[in-house]
């Protein structure tokens, strides 16, 4: 994927000094800015993990949870990359610090937020030195967690370029514009979201279940063909007769966007 230009970090960062979300419009704007991002919670306290998962889902995030360090390593092998890892330091099987040390080199773009009941400064320093982006001491309030999650996800979003290219197909995220070899392609918001996600994963097969989760924010459901229907809409607009085919069906898997 060519990067046409870099998207500057999103402005108007949430001030951590005032983390309380007030105002429907502010809240909606915040939710929209991170909606559909994938978060993995690693917390051995089942009640707390379940509560955080439920509340973060309410923020339109896609949230998975595991309860030990080894399970976290396995979950991070998923073909769909996570945007944020929220982890406790006191983890069974693989301690949080060791998990951080293993994950950081393999997933340099993954943001990591450490939750700890250890208030000792050296624990936080160790976590930050091991690759954590931020630390939060329990008992924290959910509004503070959300504020920090928003900041980290926005910081991550700054790494995604405004413009992506696959072959002669170019997508401009900020302008929500798509062109192919100078030809403007009009897409509905849903079609744009599909293409945008596929252009973030060029040359990689993307399953129908993944598209359902990422674009529709719905759990994978083999009984629906909605993804196939929309892929056809996108394909009909992107690949005109006589042009090199960019959208490919991977039998038994899903779809892939690639140049030839």
């Amino acid at each position, binding site marked *: 994927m060519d990067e046409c230009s870099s998207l500057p970090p999103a402005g108007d960062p949430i001030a951590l000094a005032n983390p309380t979300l007030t105002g429907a419009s502010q809240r909606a704007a915040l939710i929209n800015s991170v909606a559909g991002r994938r978060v993995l919670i690693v917390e*051995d*306290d089942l009640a707390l993990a379940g509560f955080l998962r439920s509340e973060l889902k309410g923020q339109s995030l896609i949230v998975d949870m595991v309860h*030990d360090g080894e399970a976290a390593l396995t979950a991070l092998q998923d073909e769909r990359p996570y945007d944020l890892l929220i982890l406790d330091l006191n983890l069974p099987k693989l301690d949080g610090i060791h998990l951080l040390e293993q994950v950081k080199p393999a997933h340099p773009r993954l943001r990591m937020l450490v939750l700890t*009941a*250890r208030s000792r400064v050296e624990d936080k320093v160790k976590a930050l030195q091991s690759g954590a982006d931020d630390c939060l001491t*329990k*008992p924290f309030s959910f509004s503070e967690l959300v504020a920090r999650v928003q900041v980290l996800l926005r910081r991550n979003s700054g790494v995604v370029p405004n413009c992506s290219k696959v072959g002669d197909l170019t997508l401009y995220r900020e302008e929500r514009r798509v062109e192919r070899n100078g030809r403007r392609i009009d897409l509905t918001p849903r079609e744009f979201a599909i293409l945008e996600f596929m252009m973030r994963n060029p040359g990689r097969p993307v399953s129908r279940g993944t598209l359902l989760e990422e674009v529709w924010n719905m759990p994978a459901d083999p009984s629906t063909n909605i993804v196939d229907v929309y892929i056809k809409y996108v394909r009909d607009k992107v690949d005109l007769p006589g042009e090199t085919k960019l959208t490919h069906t991977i039998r038994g898997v899903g779809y892939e966007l690639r140049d030839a």
Partner: protein
Amino acid sequence: MSSGMHSETQQESPVANGLGVGRFYADVAEGLHAIAQPLTILRSSVASLAAPGLTPVHLRRYLHISSQQVERACDLFDCLQDLVIANQVEAARAPFELGELLEAIAEDRKTRLEASGVKLKVVATGERQWMVGDFARTRQALLAAVRIAIAVSSPGDSVELLATSCNGLVEISVSNRLAHRRTLNSSEHLSLALAEANIRSQQGEFRSAEDPFRMSFALPLQDLDP
């Protein structure tokens, strides 16, 4: 635990119970870690309850969550308090019957056992035997062990409560037959620490292992000779 059974004699330090001060602080830290979990949920739930425009469904949900976590936090608080008491206040020293102790444990856990489908096998060797110690602390230690053993049980597992006597001592053990392949959480570690403090405060011997779970302790039998 009923602290009213204890004499109010203050001990000099936790070291007097055979636990180092460092270990005592480590146990308290474990307890603080455990209590931070429900407090985090409570803090967030209460903030949500105060948010404007809360629907009745959400109101009920957050109230339910809050009430669960208040109970959990209170249980952990009691446990922490008992840990301090076990290290500060001298244990009672009175005769009690072993069978009565085992019966109390089985009765207390009956409902939980039935709900989880785990079998509790109680084996006591010998006739009616009288132990000497603090009934409340011993019962609490044994209950904690059985509670943990049930919590880590998997289908097909069983928990054995075995009491044997030898050389003027009763050794009581609680063990899982199968390995559970999970690490005990902060609450369970705190319970285990309290069990140990309760037994050591009676100058008893204490041992534990995590997987398969096993906790055992030894306390003296009453000397019936004149």
